[in-house]
């Protein structure tokens, strides 16, 4: 079963200006995205800052109002015009945020942080809640004696474990992980990722990783979406994406990452990401693309199948034995 199926999803933010605060334009943060997440699948959404990947994640779980498009969760179509249509799905669709320093209420004890969602969703009886929370802490590798402490007493990695404990307490089916390790040190990053992967296997979760870190994407995901300026430019299985990138942007991303191998120098891509307010006419990547041609400046290419991947490009990269 498809856990998430979004079609032509748009999340635009109005920009108001002038004396009367009229809407003078839109930030097209997410602009016509198709995305599916199957059961027990690990899907990654990668892109640079400002490409709309976090907005996409939050739109999927109803934390941001969707402008247009359709969203199906667990096979049921939602009325995107009403925020409350997501409510029955909150329990099954959890999200963990990037910064564990702001996602936990500093005035609440860990027990309160963990137990609040349990009470709201009537997960267990009132007299068993403390035991349940103890189990949660053990599951994420923290000592149960931490229950009565406050968030400021913990390091970043520990806080991220608490945020994970809070979300798995509801026994969700999907967890959206929005840059969950980018605030953490490398040695701790791997701990958190391994914890999430263990929980995924144990609980049969689907995971959606939103990240800018391609090395991480390669290590964990089954399928990858590459986003640029609010649009998906390439979708492929992890192996295909890394061995034969089809979109020039994907290729540039892969080449610009420094590796430990001193023989391979990163290649640079000129220019900056344009602002999502003034999206260029034609292909969103045309301003920086090394292979740009006249056709690219007409309309943004539809996403289509090329080899085993799907790519939004008029002149996708080809390989021998395609």
């Amino acid at each position, binding site marked *: 079963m498809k856990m998430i199926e979004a079609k032509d999803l748009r999340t635009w933010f109005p920009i108001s200006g002038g004396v009367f605060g009229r809407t003078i334009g839109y930030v097209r943060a997410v602009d016509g995205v198709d995305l599916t997440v199957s059961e027990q699948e690990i899907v990654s959404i990668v892109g*640079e800052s400002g490409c709309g990947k976090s907005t996409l994640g939050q739109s999927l779980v109803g934390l941001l109002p969707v402008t247009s498009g359709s969203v199906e969760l667990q096979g049921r179509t939602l009325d995107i015009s009403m925020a409350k249509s997501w409510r029955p799905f909150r329990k099954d669709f959890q999200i963990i945020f990037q910064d564990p320093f702001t996602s936990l209420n500093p005035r609440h004890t860990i027990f309160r942080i963990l137990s609040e969602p349990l009470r709201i969703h009537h997960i267990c009886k009132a007299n068993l809640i403390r035991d349940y929370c103890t189990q949660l802490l053990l599951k994420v590798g923290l000592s149960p004696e931490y229950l009565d402490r406050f968030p400021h007493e913990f390091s970043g990695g520990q806080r991220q474990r608490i945020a994970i404990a809070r979300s798995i307490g509801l026994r969700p089916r999907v967890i959206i992980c929005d840059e969950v390790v980018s605030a953490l040190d490398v040695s701790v990053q791997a701990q958190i990722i391994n914890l999430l992967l263990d929980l995924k296997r144990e609980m049969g979760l689907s995971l959606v990783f939103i990240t800018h870190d391609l090395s991480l994407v390669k*290590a964990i995901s089954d399928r990858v979406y590459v986003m640029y300026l609010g649009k998906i430019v390439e979708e492929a299985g992890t192996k295909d994406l890394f061995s034969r990138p089809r979109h020039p942007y994907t290729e540039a991303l892969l080449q610009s990452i420094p*590796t430990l191998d001193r023989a391979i120098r990163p290649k640079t891509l000129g220019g900056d990401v344009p602002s999502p307010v003034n999206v260029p006419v034609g292909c969103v990547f045309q301003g920086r693309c090394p292979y740009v041609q006249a056709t690219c400046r007409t309309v943004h290419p539809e996403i289509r199948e090329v080899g085993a991947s799907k790519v939004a490009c008029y002149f996708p990269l080809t390989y021998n034995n395609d």
Partner: protein
Amino acid sequence: MSNTLLHVEDLSVGFRLDQGTVAVTDSVSFDIYEGEVFGLAGESGCGKTITALALLRLLPKPGSMILSGKILFKGTDILTLTLPQLRDFRGREISMIFQEPSAALNPLLPVGKQMHELFEYHRAADRPAERIREILNRVGFPDPDRILNSYPHELSGGMLQRIMIAMAVVLRPSLIIADEPTTALDVTVQAQIMELLYEMQQAAGTSVLLITHNLCLIAQYAKRIAIMYAGRIVESGECGVFLDKPLHPYSQGLLRALPDLRSDDPTLFPIPGQVPQPIDYASGCRFIDRCPHAFAPCKNKPPLFSAQNRLVACYLYENETHSDDHGASENREKAL
């Protein structure tokens, strides 16, 4: 062997807390030679930025101070300079590029005005306007006039960092300290900035102290590397030798914890436990709680042993050290 430009010896920096003074770095020593890129790597809180700030005596005051040590730059001890001497010295001899370019520039002044100040202050060039245009051209702005009249908020992070690089190199200093120069930037922009910095470094023969948590960046650009953990340097040596075979258990763990884009094995190997806080620093080896090889001697502070062409602060390599002092010190020279 090229000449030593900067010699840091036993540098300890302390912070004044309620509980008393806590040393956040402990006897940090390293040398930077003329014309080389030296990488200082470590996780957040290990003391790498504090060390960099100490080199220019920019430590936050009050609250922090240099407890002991020597910083010799071209033979002059920076710690003995008077304030006016120091002001002249900063920017002209050693310049710095900070992590967050939007925080390093004054938001209320156009970029051109801020670049001019540099020249006014150091009374450096006859025709500063020309020099500024020329340097902006070199860091990749074909139309400098537009940039000169822009305010920082009108420019992107990558553009601001290019301006910071321009400001750092324009007075032709001998050493540039680049503290996490690309951490706030996207990967495609990171590659641009690093290439630019490297190009400028190569062209002018400047030395660069590259401080970052990203080992891959150091692997790509640095000649020699020092790894810091919990306020101490635990391993230092030639970058290539280090990457082929890290010796310190922490260095080994760090390299294994990195997801590698070139490998097909998706398993990640975390280092168990967490980085200790300065207040909890152990008197012996500070990696002891997380180390898979910890044994009895680790309760004492490990000195830097020279083994396999480098310096490593771990008792595992105690017996590899040459027994006669002369050989050891020679080795130490070589590794440094």
